[in-house]
């Protein structure tokens, strides 16, 4: 699965001239966002960025709140590097990658206060909505974090809260209490350094050549809500500032695409 040394060298040497697929360095691959793909889920989305494909699904259940926030709903983000995408996902370090993916998506949503968790309280201290965001990697050709982040927020935006019957059980027979209380649309944009050149939306081969990777999630007002540097090498502060500017610009375009998909879904 690891690419050959010669190929790595080729990518590194040529990145300043042109990318594999002729894109410019800050250019995204084609993105498609589909909604309502899983009938059993409260909300769902399929996101493709080039050949990378993920499915995000929302399931909701009633549970007990955490003792230190008795009036707030609970968000849980989980990502499965399904063996669909690559059987190597099961051996060793990638588990760590899967945890990092979940946690970056989780923090992007949680820290931007995108979901108004106070509105997800059913009975203080006793019953709150638990919102499970599950992300499955169907095909892995790099930039999973952006695909997962886009899928998660789109699935949330299209989710319907199930109805609670009088006896307290959840009625899943197609009755709903309305949409989730969403306040913002955080969008993560990931760029990396290859041969000290900034490259955005890296495919899998490029990712393996990257010395360092930096993800920046931006909200509607253009502020940043989450950042994460990954990869073994260092970055200068100028490079980080440049990447965060690219994130501002690109997130705007992608946010429009998300909004369009959600609008179409609700129509």
């Amino acid at each position: 699965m690891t690419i050959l040394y010669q190929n790595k060298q080729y990518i590194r040497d040529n990145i300043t001239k042109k990318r594999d697929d002729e894109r410019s360095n800050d250019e995204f691959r084609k993105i498609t966002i589909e909604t309502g793909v899983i009938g059993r889920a409260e909300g769902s989305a399929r996101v493709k960025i080039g050949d990378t494909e993920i499915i995000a699904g929302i399931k909701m259940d009633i549970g007990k709140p955490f003792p230190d926030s008795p009036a707030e709903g609970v968000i849980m983000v989980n990502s499965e590097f399904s063996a669909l995408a690559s059987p190597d996902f099961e051996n060793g370090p990638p588990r760590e990658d899967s945890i990092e993916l979940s946690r970056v998506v989780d923090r992007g949503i949680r820290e931007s206060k995108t979901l108004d968790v106070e509105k997800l309280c059913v009975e203080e201290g006793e019953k709150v909505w638990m919102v499970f965001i599950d992300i499955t990697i169907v095909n892995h050709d790099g930039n999973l974090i952006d695909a997962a982040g886009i899928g998660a927020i789109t699935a949330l935006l299209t989710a319907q809260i199930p109805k609670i019957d009088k006896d307290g059980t959840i009625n899943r027979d197609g009755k709903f209490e309305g949409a989730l209380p969403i306040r913002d649309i955080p969008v993560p944009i990931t760029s990396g350094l290859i041969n000290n050149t900034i490259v955005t939306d890296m495919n899998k081969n490029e990712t393996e050549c990257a010395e360092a990777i930096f993800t920046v999630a931006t909200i509607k007002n253009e502020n940043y809500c989450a950042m994460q540097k990954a990869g073994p090498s260092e970055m200068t502060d100028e490079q980080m500032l440049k990447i965060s500017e690219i994130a501002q610009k690109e997130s705007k375009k992608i946010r429009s695409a998300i909004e369009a998909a959600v609008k179409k879904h609700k129509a």
Partner: protein
Amino acid sequence: MGSNVPEKYKTLIKDDKRIDGRKLDELRPVKIEVGVIPSASGSAYIEIGNTKVLAAVHGPKEMFPRHMIDEDKAVLNVRYAMLPFSTSDRVRPGPSRRSNEISKVTRHALESVICLEEYPAMGIDLTLDIIQADAGTRATAITAASVALAHAGIPMKGLVAATAIGKINDKLAVDLNGPEDNFGQTDMPIAMISTNKNITLLQMDGDFSKEEFKTALSMAKKAIGPLFEAQKAALRKYYE
């Protein structure tokens, strides 16, 4: 086969029509796509009614873990999983007793048609992810699996397809849907080989008389025919 049957599911057959309008011997609509996962050696997507499955094959490749290597033939590793959002109540990620058992019977349902002896000491990984569940997930997964194996170019003696025969309101019916499975009397998933219609998987829970079992076997033989056609059509379409 739960015991609390909601009023609306007490009558599952009316005027020889089932709740979704099908006849007793009628399959649900079938849709098969080949090659949906670029990074896999072979892959297929299948919808049978509301049940949706992704199948991916990786390999033949180096076998891992090493102590499971078979020097005489390839080992088929099967991982069946329900994705967390595939059912009404979220499924906790990770293997369960149910998924382990299904992985095993699925492996047995496919092994006999694959020419495993052509790849000694290697491994073939078969991943079956249920993305939406509405009864018949293991049968649907098996039907998808042999398409994905064919797409991966792995030599096989025939295709394998599967469906379920059930008993609902005391009548036999093919390819149960969710409510029929939950509130019916009997469920019998069955897999057959395209070339000789021999049986590679059969499980049964519920109640069958000897005659019902006999009839069920012949209904299965008949019902599975169109599934083989759909498999072949999908493969043909892909290679066109």
